[in-house]
């Protein structure tokens, strides 16, 4: 852990290719992930604007659509098949490419070595490979937008038989094949990344960086990676079986189908089997997306409220609890598939249990803000925004997790509102908070704060204007993935609201241009960042601004305390970095800290509850005395 590499990493010359392209440096790989993720986010947002156009103005024609999309926009109207393709690709790109790879890939890579005190990842080569597989998979996914029969159009959940049979929807031809190839590469990339993150966190912490002294970001990356390693292979299995069904005539998911004028010679399979496999990944995936955002938020809120995160142990415990539970709740996506109703009961109970650790997290955030000394950096604004979205979207989960209520809400706009708030927007806010907060670490510059404020307020307002009203449509039984709502009398009354949502979405997306401009402009022209711009305790701020290879010019610093010693009474400053020894603190601070508590002032296991918890940690070998 404390091996001191004597040679100076920053001295040897690197070629352009090994520095910027096939880089093995975790900081460069993080930036590559971030930029790729941003490109994918822009594409995904533009796709969503196209279908919002259709939903807002279903009766109108837009001649430029035909120039842009050719046959898919014949006569200035979106083709219904292409509408489904847009919905599918928007979901796929956002969930996997932006919020899984873009978010985890960026911040796990950037922060794990930095915050645990390591020179790089356990395997820098595998790290590079992981990025390039992701890049390849992104390219293939984007290429699928240009094939003649259109990209995949069976929804991002690609339920067979729709996704298995090109006769069912044109997108299930070459588009779906490319989707599956792309996702296979993506999963390989994600597994390499996750294994690397876990290994690095467990083995390469610097001296004194006990598990219980790790920042919550690292905890969240750890649990996220464990989820990824355990669940992505199941999606891989599902995808491989689907490839077999599509290309080699097997019938894992197909049975009793008559389509395009013929009865298929496929029997004995079950489309529901795919759903079980898909959601066995799919549900943990929600937390793979969300947990890094929660970790980032914990760090940003503590730093900018100048207060220790409230209930560190409970925060870690709730991450572990959520991770565990997320594996046994997948059936709540399938209440109305015809699954055995008894299973419905089981999954409902487990699903609602997961609300408890989520509630603990929310209250702990609130308690951290209470009596803080809040500094509204753009990152802090987005972190507070995340808490708000997490509450709003999380509460509607209580409706959808209830099998009985789900009967009438399943697959309606209520669901669209729910997951866009709690998973989509909240994670996106976490990602943006992370970018604003660690931008100085990535580029050595500061982003323009005022543009950051503007970006936040416009985005925050737009998110609520777009997604909040959708709950009402859901309560009216308006189904999702509908090309238009003019056919049904009871749905047609939402015309005006749909238009309003579309306008809000367009404005909200336009506000992202502020961010993109700020991001790229500041790389060159931003103010130079000081070494520790936010007066933060964590290790990454002890590295030089220049971002050298190997992170620290000399020896890797040792850690002497947990990362949340903010506003400790009697301390000379309102923060005590993790590298500060107790001996360097004023006499008054040393005494109470050393005597009863091994880590920090209140770590004493005073109640049975904490005692149990530390025993629980001991089980995993997490607490080293």
């Amino acid at each position: 852990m404390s091996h001191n590499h004597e040679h100076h990493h920053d001295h040897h010359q690197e070629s352009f290719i090994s520095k910027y392209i096939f880089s093995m440096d975790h900081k460069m790989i993080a930036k590559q992930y971030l930029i790729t993720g941003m490109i994918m986010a822009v594409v995904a947002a533009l796709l969503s604007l196209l279908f919002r156009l259709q939903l807002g103005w279903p009766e109108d024609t837009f001649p430029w659509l035909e120039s842009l999309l050719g046959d898919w926009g014949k006569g200035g109207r979106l083709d219904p098949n292409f509408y489904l393709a847009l919905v599918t690709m928007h979901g796929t790109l956002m969930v996997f490419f932006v919020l899984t790879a873009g978010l985890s890939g960026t911040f796990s890579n950037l922060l794990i070595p930095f915050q645990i005190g390591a020179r790089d990842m356990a395997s820098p080569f595998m790290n590079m490979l992981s990025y390039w597989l992701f890049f390849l998979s992104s390219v293939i996914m984007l290429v699928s937008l240009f094939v003649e029969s259109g990209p995949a159009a069976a929804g991002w959940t690609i339920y067979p038989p729709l996704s298995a049979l090109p006769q069912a929807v044109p997108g299930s031809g070459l588009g779906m094949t490319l989707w599956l190839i792309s996702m296979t590469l993506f999963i390989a990339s994600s597994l390499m990344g996750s294994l690397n993150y876990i290994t690095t966190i467990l083995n390469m912490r610097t001296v004194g960086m006990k598990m219980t002294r790790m920042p919550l970001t690292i905890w969240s990356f750890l649990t996220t990676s464990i989820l990824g390693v355990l669940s992505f292979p199941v999606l891989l299995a599902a995808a491989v079986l689907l490839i077999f069904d599509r290309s080699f005539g097997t019938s894992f998911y197909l049975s009793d189908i008559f389509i395009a004028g013929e009865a298929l010679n496929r029997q004995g399979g079950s489309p529901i089997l795919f759903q079980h496999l898909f959601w066995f990944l799919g549900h943990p995936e929600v937390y793979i997306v969300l947990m890094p955002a929660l970790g980032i938020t914990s760090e940003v809120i503590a730093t900018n409220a100048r207060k220790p995160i409230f209930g560190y142990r409970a925060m870690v415990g709730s991450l572990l609890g959520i991770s565990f539970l997320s594996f046994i709740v997948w059936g709540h996506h399938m209440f109305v598939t015809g699954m055995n109703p008894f299973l419905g009961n089981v999954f409902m109970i487990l699903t609602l249990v997961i609300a408890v650790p989520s509630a603990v997290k929310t209250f702990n955030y609130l308690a951290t803000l209470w009596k803080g000394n809040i500094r509204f950096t753009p990152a802090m604004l987005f972190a507070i925004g995340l808490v708000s979205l997490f509450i709003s979207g999380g509460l509607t989960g209580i409706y959808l997790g209830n099998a009985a209520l789900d009967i009438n809400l399943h697959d309606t706009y209520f669901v669209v509102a729910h997951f866009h708030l709690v998973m989509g927007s909240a994670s996106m806010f976490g990602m943006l908070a992370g970018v604003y907060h660690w931008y100085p670490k990535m580029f050595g510059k500061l982003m323009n704060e005022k543009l950051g404020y503007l970006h936040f307020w416009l985005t925050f307002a737009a998110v609520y204007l777009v997604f909040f009203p959708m709950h009402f449509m859901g309560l009216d039984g308006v189904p999702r993935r509908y090309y238009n709502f003019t056919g049904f009398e009871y749905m047609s009354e939402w015309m005006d609201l749909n238009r309003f949502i579309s306008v809000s979405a367009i404005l909200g997306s336009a506000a992202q241009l502020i961010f993109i401009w700020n991001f790229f402009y500041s790389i060159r022209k931003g103010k130079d960042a000081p070494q520790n711009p936010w007066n933060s305790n964590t290790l990454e701020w002890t590295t030089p601004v220049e971002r050298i290879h190997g992170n620290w010019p000399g020896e890797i610093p040792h850690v002497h305390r947990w990362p949340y010693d903010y506003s400790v009474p009697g301390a000379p400053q309102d923060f005590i970095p993790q590298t500060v020894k107790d001996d360097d603190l004023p006499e008054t601070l040393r005494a109470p800290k050393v005597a009863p508590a091994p880590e920090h002032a209140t770590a004493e296991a005073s109640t049975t509850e904490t005692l149990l918890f530390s025993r629980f940690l001991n089980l995993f070998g997490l607490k080293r005395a």
Partner: protein
Amino acid sequence: MKFQSLTAVKWLSSGVLTVVFGFLALTAVAQPTGAELFSNNCAACHKIDQDLVGPALKGIYDRRDEAWLIKWIRNSQAVIASGDQYAVDLYNKWNKVAMPAYDWSDDEIKSVLAYVKEQEAALATQSAGGGDGGTAAVAAKRDGWGNGPLVILTIIMLGALLLYAGRVVSARYKLKGVRLFNWNNINGVLFIVFLVVGMALVAFQFLKYMKFTLPVAASEHGVVLDQMLAITFWITFVVFVATHILLFVYAFMYRNQGKESKALYYPDNHKLEFFWTVIPAVVLTVLVLYGTKVWREITQGEIEENRVELELFAYQFGWQARFPGADGLLGSHDFRMISATNSMGIDEMDPNSKDDLLVPEVYLPVNRQVVLRLRARDVIHSAYLPHFRVQMNVVPGMPTQFVFTPTMTTEEMREKTNNYNFNYELACNKICGAAHFNMRMKFVVVSEAEYEAWLTKQRTYFRKAEAQTASIN
């Protein structure tokens, strides 16, 4: 002689009766106009002026003659099989999606074609901007986005201008060593503004949109569901408001206000944490227990003796419904028996199939238990009847079912909602392809007597067989 004349009378009268009833039955079924036939059968896949699953029907008269069209509509697969080049090309061009066969008379088909022509003319006058001004939709069509882009542009320019002005002004103050804006204060205050405006908007939306949401449930279990929805709503709404007030008020109250601001070092409080772990756990336990009880009642309730059973069959892109005939049993089925003339794959050898009724729309008697048996032909669909709080996926190869009891007739619902166009409608709620949004079927809930009357008017699956038995009698 007497005997003979009696037989003759008997024969004659039964013949007359057969003819009369046959005619009545025919007229009862043959009543639908071209418009109705079109919207019930064609609209799922065809639009007048836009390609959907099948081609736009505009100008269909010019493309093919009437005789060909009649042949095609009656059995498109037969036309293709006969080697007609145009038909084969058409079939290939449209992704080999077979158009269902429609067992219609010449007049019925002509009425549909007439309807297409009529609609085409109506659209032509609309786009010409003539007539009585048209509908709002037509006006909107001409306007496109109206002055939307202009408004957006203005907003952006105003924003840029403000930004620039702010920069100039603050730069001048900076020179004097004064900070003009305290952004920490501004952001803190904005959270309060956001809270107040946001909550006002939430209230406004509730006032404006709740009346658009589903009316009172029209089924027995639906009423229970709605109660649970209300309980869940009030619990979550209180939490939503309370936590947001705390969040935004804390953000404002505890903002940094200069050098003397200090945070409280307060890393833990086990009692507090215990408290807010247990409270949600207790509330959720109550909801779970209630939820599981209701869920069990809905999914594992008793099947009643006098239930109405029917089969809903989903395909790309529409629904078919089948009632068992007098025997109360649905004939068996096999997907390999599906053909252009037997679109549900009903087993013709099964005696139970003979009296099965194929219906274009579903009538249900009020206050009687209904068992929906669900079957799909090609991909997964979902039978969604939001007004009854009914939803169940329809999965190829895996029959599913849903049991419910309608409690309000269509008439009662019309009065209740004060909407005399109201109809219960079945929608597809699982993504299934291009015309997913267009899979409709009308459900009508009527009194027991009306239901029985309606049933007698439906044609059985094997009309031919039926006619034969009638003539033997």
